[in-house]
């Protein structure tokens, strides 16, 4: 008998009475009220700013201008982008003219791992949606916009469409039917990397990004 069979045999031998399935939907229905987009935006901002993220409200037309301002203010001259995405292409086209270098994540990490760890000061990714209750961005990395983009560069800039903000994590995963198809690595991100491991003193920039910038795209003014 294998370890697997022995473990399963022991568990199956236990006298266990089945328990009723938990009613998660009704708990959320009675404890989390629905909000308008404006209310969700406000709550999202409050929470993620509390976690030390920077949030700028922009429009589809203006986000590149704000992105350039943010990079200039932080004296960043190089931004890692995903050339296979529409926003990545726009960044390459428009920022390159403003003197910001926009290398694309276009080859497997093995080809340029050291460069990624040492020479990329910032990155730009999109987010799939967000969660108002906790101030959380949802990232859905894929072949175009890989996992390490939101992790290794010290400054991570994220585009978020205000219309995609859900009230709760539960609402996000049920409304979008996540269980029917998760990516290799789905991520919830709620601020820059941090730790309180030394004398419970909060310090930012532990291992992941030291700064998280959200460009929150709302209605055109």
């Amino acid at each position, binding site marked *: 008998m*294998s*370890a697997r069979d*022995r*473990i*399963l045999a*022991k*568990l*199956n031998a*236990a006298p*266990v009475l*089945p*328990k*009723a399935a*938990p009613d*998660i*939907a009704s*708990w959320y229905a009675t404890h989390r009220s629905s909000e308008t987009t404006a209310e969700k935006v406000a709550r999202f901002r409050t*929470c993620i700013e509390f976690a030390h993220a920077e949030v700028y409200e922009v429009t589809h037309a203006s986000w590149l201008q704000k992105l350039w301002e943010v990079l200039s203010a932080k004296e960043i001259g190089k931004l890692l982008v995903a050339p296979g995405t529409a926003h990545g292409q726009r960044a390459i086209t428009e920022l390159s003219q403003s003197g910001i270098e926009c290398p694309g994540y276009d080859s*497997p*990490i093995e080809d340029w*791992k*050291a460069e990624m*760890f040492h020479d990329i000061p910032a990155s730009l990714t999109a987010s799939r949606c967000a969660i108002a209750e906790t*101030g*959380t961005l949802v990232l859905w990395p894929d*072949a175009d916009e*890989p*996992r*390490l983009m939101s*992790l*290794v560069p010290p400054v991570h800039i994220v585009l978020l469409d205000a219309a995609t903000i859900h009230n*709760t*994590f*539960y609402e996000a*995963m049920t409304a979008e039917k*996540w*269980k029917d198809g*998760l990516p*290799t*690595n*789905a*991520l*919830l*991100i*709620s601020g*820059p*990397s*941090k*730790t*309180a*491991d*030394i*004398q*419970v*003193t909060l*310090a930012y*920039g*532990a*291992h*992941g990004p030291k700064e998280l910038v959200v460009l929150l795209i709302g209605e055109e003014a």
Partner: protein
Amino acid sequence: MSEHALNFMPSEGFRARAKDVVENPFLRQSFRGAMDFLIGKRAGQFPNPEELETLRTLGEQIRQYNLGKLPALLVQLEENLSRNGIQVHWAETPDEANAIILGICQAHSAKLMVKGKSMVSEEIELNHACEAAGIEAMESDMGEYIVQLAGEKPSHIIMPAIHKTKEEIATLFHEKVPGVDYTDNVDALIQIGRNVLREKFLVADIGLSGVNFAVAETGTLCLVENEGNGRLSTTAPPVHIAITGIEKIVEKLDHVPPLLSLLTRSATGQNISTYFNMISGPRKAGEKDGPTEVHLVLLDNGRTQAYADEQLRKTLQCIRCGACMNHCPVYTRIGGHAYGTTYPGPIGKIISPHMLGLEATATMATASTLCGACGEVCPVKIPIPDLLMRLREESFSAPHENPSMRGQGAGYSRLMTAVWQGWAAVYRSPSLYGVVTWLGSRFGWLMPSRQGPWTSVRVPLKPAPKRLRDMLRERG
């Protein structure tokens, strides 16, 4: 507190280790301050008692429902992980788990393993096994990194280095990290750790992590963390090995949000952790990063023993938030190392006997005031005080056939049992009680001045010259 103080007989030396901490005002202050901070942070996250209570009930229902289907869910998890390309391994003992992990390392000629925080890897002493096999195992959680540099073990499951002051850490970094000057600035210390470990993430052959929730229906491994080292450990190296106890399974993806909310709010008083990392497979064709191999090791190590008994099974509801230790008056005073087990505090006292046997842990359940705080704050309503009483019974009752726990009766003493039986008899019979108290009031002067551990810190016990019933009679 050196590593030598820890061994596999936690009951032995417990008093001595506890005494060391109780008499050390700096450690007392470290723990008291940190626990008060965490208690306050948690309370701030649950302003509405009704919400807290109903959410805890929901958390308990989710955990009990999933434990009720555990064997079927393990099979479902294995099927779905395999379908996603994650290789599943099963281990009954720590030795088996280490052999599986080392086997994977050796198949890749691995020299360096970076580790995200994993208490199960502490439970199996993976770092020692790696060292013996010539593989460097490097902790990357800041607290774990500090503890590893110091040659110690975690003193708290969420805050491993809570027993160290920033000055101690400053000295440690100065002495152990090449080229580092002394600084006790916390931001600077964290940046030192970041810079050292980034170079390790860059070149590591293997990334190891724990698992907070394994979702059976989707074949997903979920990790909760703030630092990003968990994400780096599971993304940057070419191979990712996750290890978890068999109990951390949920059937449905929608079981995760309530448990995640209970976990982060109870543990550190955060509405959510910085990262929630959901891994459902290795790198797919066309993807540019992520490990090309992902493994999951499912560990028993005594959990099936707890599972076999309806009451003891509740131990497995635990989601490892650490709130029970944060609120424990004993843990706060003696710290995590005194217990001598991987998991300290109330949860340690109820889970360790299944892992190590009652032979090694017979008196652990007595290191409790039974104040009930642990049970009150537990986010999944584990009745910890009831379980402590049950474990005392298992330890100190006379050995019998078919015990439900390994080492049942390990603390049994014929004399002590006789004393308690006598005591119970006196209290059951009013006439016998009258005789004994009358003798006590007359011959109290015969009481010795040294009464074992009692008089080590207290004045001797002496029966009053007049009994309560005599005084009441005199008053008419």
